[in-house]
């Protein structure tokens, strides 16, 4: 493996070609890349080296070092010299002040490669394409590697699901690679063991199994869209026909395939083309927030979102129970119960019929239960948008309901236009059948050998299956996992699994695009991939690379080594493939007949809606500090979930935010903290899955409330008839935003499209202020001057930029206690305000919501600069940035006090050595070497990613030019943004993209009336309501 691995990784093509992809942020990079591994340093970082030696003495680490860096472990250790700076910066600065110390500086060593790969230049990053898989969600990525350490994940422009963007989960996943609580070694019955021991043990088991044709073997694996994996599964079935192999994934499992089979008679995967749609209807479907294709959806939706977009501005209608980001960006939003989506669609179908749309028989069912005006207007609009509209139904809705959605699209002639179908990756039946069968088999004691590939069924299997107890009955329990969890606790053999950045695999995107998963680094803890372990189960152990490579060649006739090379470096191979789909109207009609409106819910019979969390997901990211501390898009909660209830329901239940309730559902109970969430459907309790982990590692345990406890196999997503009662106690839920109203201040400026047409400069002129005059002549800026524009019309509040910034700028994690105190460190935050739509401003049952990303706006007349007594924050003349010099800052916090935008962040403690933020040596490998790690007592803030600016300047200078081309610099936030809401560039160049955007009439400067002259400006949000709804 290592042979191929090296060969492919070192392939020059990767580096060069990624340039072509525009991933060229070769970073300026001077930190002591060459600091020696095995050389205890006298003074600086002494303690560090000790602990490092400690780590590097563990056999696993030793082997990792030698395997990954046969040339000598220099790269592995180099980030440390940078990071020893964390604790010692204070001292080193003090010395610098006196002249690099009055004492002779400590001896340091340089350890060069013995043989340096030709494309590897010390201090310059490399970029490799790979693919991220998460419960059947597939995203193509480009990963930055510094001296052999993956440090930053970004989207792959060539991949249909990414288009260059990356979500918070994709980017946050890199921290899990360095998770200090990963499975570091094979354990047997809790005792340390080795792969050797396991292999021997397995061979015996295997012999026995083969004799029985595999009877008594149960394999449970996570959902995956990897062809190579599927092929390996097939091999196992060959070798052991009697073996039972089931897929369980708590959140990916959806009814869409069942729906397509119902509607089209075959397993298909719907693919939306939102860029073609004038009208988009999302029925309980979070198409912009959490659906497998949401990044792509965002890009396509945004392409038609600008009021002056070619083809006109689109209109989004959302019909949902929970308040999702999709609902937040919608032009019209209707609150319904999750269980009534079907009834709503039938009512809509009936109205469509009224408007002359031919709906197959049995579907339409008039109803006045759903805001008749809403339904009528929507139907009328849809009828006029044949082939240019989309009706998207939530993937978790029952098959029949989704089928109705397909039928409506079909009737509107959208199929083939805005809705296309790709062949499904696999024909999986209902998501719970597999785990049900598994639980049954286990309970019956018929399972000798249980192999669990990844996942955590003991924690997340439906509660009614009591999987943990059943699992205990299996004789041999083998768990392959990246990190020990609740399931591993019950297993005999716990085997270290590779992180996706350490393994070979492949994946097929929803639209059928093939992409490769290639490792950026040798397995740190000597793990094996699912595929590798599965080949062993099949009786023929293989290296992951061999399996994937072989399958690639075999998959299609005529594929060559060269195609492989190209696939490796592009990350993708081939394009989308679509299938013909003809609607079986009769089948849908019959099925629709079963879809009835539910009896009304009440305070004593509540709906219980389970949400997929965009931070810890199904619970697998519980130990990921970045994601735990990421505020939820709508609630702004960090480090916890909560029982979300609408304001009205909260009154009925007599509870309020931060109080505790006991939720009772089918005899099961859960005590949870309450969060009153405007815009939620009444009589609904929405609670995110994946919290309340009991075995998750140092920062992941006992955060929030375990909603799986209430989740049963017959009600995976929505349960009815739940009860809730207030109980004693409080839950101080940590949130990053305490005040939800904009207080009528002109911060986020909004118009409807009609108003915009009438008065396009409204936003710019909203604030009347006397002419802004300074006491003195303004500074004349020359050369390239950087600026940023943020389009509030495109921002959906997905948080992608926040994690991008955190990863790029080594931003520390502070933990819930500190968040509660208001000490979170995010350089870019997304302000979320609710505004009442009713006459009573206090009534937030049907609120509008706005998202506003705010980071340092780089004021030209920066209030922060004037007040710093030591000139630690000053303005740069080339570029016009508001520089923040960490090694000069003495920490008066005056700048933060005087910042009108409150974007400065202070290191109240040495976060990297404090509480949840504490980093082990391995975690420090994730640091970006191009950005100083700040110590306590230092102010920090956004710098427009000045390290990227400098890198681009360096490359320009080396090329002999003194101008950086437009687009050559992309700050991390802009890079990650799926809707391209953030644009950066040279505001002096009238032809730069940012200048053109800033020239738009709806461009405005927040708090510009203070004459701060911010370099970041906003584009006003334009809503596009249907005129008939407004009147």
């Amino acid at each position: 493996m290592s042979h191929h691995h090296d060969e492919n990784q070192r392939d020059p093509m990767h580096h060069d070609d990624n340039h072509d992809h525009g991933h060229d942020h070769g970073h300026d990079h001077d930190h002591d890349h060459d600091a020696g591994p095995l050389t205890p340093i006298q003074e600086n970082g002494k303690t560090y080296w000790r602990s490092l030696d400690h780590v590097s003495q563990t056999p696993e680490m030793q082997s990792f070092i030698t395997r990954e860096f046969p040339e000598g472990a220099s790269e592995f250790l180099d980030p440390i010299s940078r990071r020893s700076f964390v604790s010692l910066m204070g001292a080193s600065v003090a010395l610098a002040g006196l002249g690099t110390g009055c004492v002779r500086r400590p001896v340091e060593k340089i350890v060069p490669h013995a043989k340096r790969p030709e494309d590897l230049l010390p201090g310059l990053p490399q970029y490799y394409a790979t693919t991220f898989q998460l419960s059947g969600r597939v995203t193509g990525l480009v990963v930055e590697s510094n001296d052999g350490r993956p440090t930053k994940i970004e989207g792959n422009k060539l991949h249909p699901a990414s288009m260059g963007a990356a979500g918070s989960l994709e980017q946050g996943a890199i921290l899990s690679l360095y998770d200090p609580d990963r499975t570091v070694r094979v354990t047997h019955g809790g005792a340390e063991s080795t792969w050797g021991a396991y292999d021997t043990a397995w061979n015996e088991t295997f012999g026995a199994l083969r004799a029985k044709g595999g009877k008594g073997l149960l394999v449970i694996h996570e959902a995956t869209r990897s062809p190579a994996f599927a092929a390996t599964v097939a091999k196992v079935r060959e070798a052991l026909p009697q073996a039972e192999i089931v897929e369980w994934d708590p959140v990916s499992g959806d009814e869409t395939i069942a729906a397509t089979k119902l509607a089209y008679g075959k397993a298909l995967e719907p693919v939306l083309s939102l860029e073609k749609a004038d009208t988009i209807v999302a029925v309980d479907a979070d198409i912009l927030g959490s659906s497998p294709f949401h990044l792509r959806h965002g890009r396509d939706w945004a392409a038609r979102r600008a009021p002056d977009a070619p083809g006109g501005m689109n209109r989004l209608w959302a019909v949902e129970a929970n308040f999702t980001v999709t609902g937040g960006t919608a032009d019209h939003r209707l609150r319904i119960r999750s269980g009534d989506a079907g009834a709503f669609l039938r009512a809509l179908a009936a109205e469509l019929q009224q408007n002359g749309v031919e709906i197959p028989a049995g579907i339409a069912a008039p109803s006045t239960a759903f805001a008749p005006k809403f339904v009528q207007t929507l139907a009328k609009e849809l009828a006029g948008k044949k082939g240019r509209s989309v009706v998207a139904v939530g993937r978790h809705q029952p098959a029949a309901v989704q089928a109705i959605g397909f039928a409506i699209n079909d009737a509107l002639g959208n199929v083939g236009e805005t809705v296309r179908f790709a062949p499904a990756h696999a024909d999986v039946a209902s998501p719970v059948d597999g785990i049900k069968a598994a639980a049954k088999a286990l309970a019956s004691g018929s399972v000798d050998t249980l192999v669990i590939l990844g996942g955590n069924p003991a924690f997340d299997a439906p509660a009614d299956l009591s999987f943990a107890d059943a699992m205990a009955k299996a004789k041999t329990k083998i768990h392959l996992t990246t990190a020990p969890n609740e399931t591993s606790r019950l297993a005999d053999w716990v085997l270290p699994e590779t992180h996706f950045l350490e393994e070979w695999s492949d994946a097929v995107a929803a639209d059928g695009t093939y992409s490769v998963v290639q490792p950026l680094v040798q397995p740190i803890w000597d793990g094996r991939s699912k595929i590798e372990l599965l080949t062993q189960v099949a009786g023929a152990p293989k290296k992951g690379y061999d399996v994937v490579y072989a399958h690639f060649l075999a998959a299609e006739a005529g594929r060559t080594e060269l195609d492989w090379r190209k696939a490796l470096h592009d990350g993708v191979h081939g394009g989308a493939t679509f299938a013909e789909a003809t609607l079986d109207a009769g089948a849908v009609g019959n099925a629709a007949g079963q879809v009835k409106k539910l009896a009304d819910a009440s305070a004593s019979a509540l709906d219980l809606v389970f949400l997929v969390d965009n931070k810890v997901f199904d619970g697998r990211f519980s130990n990921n500090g970045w994601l735990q501390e990421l505020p939820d898009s709508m609630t702004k909660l960090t480090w916890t979930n909560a029982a979300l209830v609408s304001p009205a329901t909260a009154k009925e239940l007599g509870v309020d935010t931060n109080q505790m309730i006991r939720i009772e559902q089918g005899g099961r109970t859960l005590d949870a903290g309450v969060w009153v969430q405007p815009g939620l459907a009444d009589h609904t309790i929405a609670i995110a899955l994946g919290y309340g982990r009991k075995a998750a590692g140092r920062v992941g345990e006992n955060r929030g409330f375990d909603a799986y406890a209430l989740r049963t196999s017959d009600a995976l997503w929505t349960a009815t008839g739940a009860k809730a009662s207030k109980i004693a106690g409080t839950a101080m839920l940590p949130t990053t935003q305490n005040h939800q109203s904009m207080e009528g201040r002109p911060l986020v400026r909004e118009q409807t499209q009609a108003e915009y047409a009438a008065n396009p400069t409204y936003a710019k002129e909203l604030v009347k202020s006397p002419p802004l005059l300074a006491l003195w002549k303004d500074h004349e800026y020359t050369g390239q001057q950087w600026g940023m524009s943020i389009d509030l019309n495109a921002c959906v509040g997905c948080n992608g930029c926040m994690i991008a910034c955190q990863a790029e700028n080594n931003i520390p994690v502070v933990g819930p206690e500190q968040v509660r105190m208001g000490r979170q460190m995010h350089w870019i935050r997304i302000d979320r305000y609710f505004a009442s739509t009713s006459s009573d401003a206090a009534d937030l049952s049907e609120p509008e919501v706005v998202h506003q990303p705010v980071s340092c706006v780089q004021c030209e007349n920066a209030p922060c600069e004037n007040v710093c007594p030591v000139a630690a924050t000053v303005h740069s003349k080339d570029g016009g940035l508001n520089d923040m010099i960490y090694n000069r800052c003495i920490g008066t916090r005056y700048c933060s006090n005087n910042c009108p935008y409150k974007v400065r962040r202070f290191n109240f403690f040495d976060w990297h050595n404090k509480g949840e933020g504490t980093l082990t040596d391995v975690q420090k490998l994730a640091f970006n070497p191009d950005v100083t790690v700040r110590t306590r007592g230092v102010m920090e803030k956004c710098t427009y990613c000045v390290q990227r600016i400098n890198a681009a300047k360096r490359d320009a200078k080396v090329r002999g030019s003194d101008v950086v081309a437009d687009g050559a610099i992309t700050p991390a936030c802009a890079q990650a943004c799926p809707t391209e809401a953030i644009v950066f560039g040279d505001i002096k160049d009238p032809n730069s993209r940012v200048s053109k955007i800033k020239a738009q009439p709806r461009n405005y400067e927040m708090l510009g009336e203070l004459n701060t002259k911010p370099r970041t400006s906003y584009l006003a949000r334009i809503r596009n309501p249907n005129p008939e709804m407004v009147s």
Partner: protein
Amino acid sequence: MAKHKLIVAEFDTPAEIVAAAGKLQGAGYRDYDAHTPFPIHGLDKAMKIKDSRLGWIVLAHGLVGGLGGLTMQWWMNGVDYQMLIGGKPYFAFQAFVPITFALTILLSAFGTVFGMLFLNGLPRWSHPLLAHPGFRRHSDDKFYLSVESDDPKFDATKTRALLEEIGGKRVALLEAP
């Protein structure tokens, strides 16, 4: 040289010392002094003491402080390392006023105190009068005249006689150690 001597005489009230000092001055003595627990109005006139020159010293110091302070700020922020701060000019004199003012006052104060000590020839810890037990009440409630042997008219016997004649009590001849 001859040992430094002085004769000291004690008086009981401000009125007495003023009168006595006047007589001494009238008798042509110059190198003499009065010692009192607090400054006595009229005594300075009786002794014909010139006005203090302290003001000039203070003025000089004040100017140094003010100009020096302003120059320092101008050179450091305006010349040596020109930094663009808050969009202000490098030499933003409005912002430099407070420190210029503070430094003016500070140096003036130093000038005042040290100038005063300089003019008074203080500190001078060793002095025959201070060692003379009969002199102790100068800081309490008695008033003294002392005549220095440096005075051309000084004469151990005559001066003693004069002091006693003008009402001096407990007249004593002191010798510098």
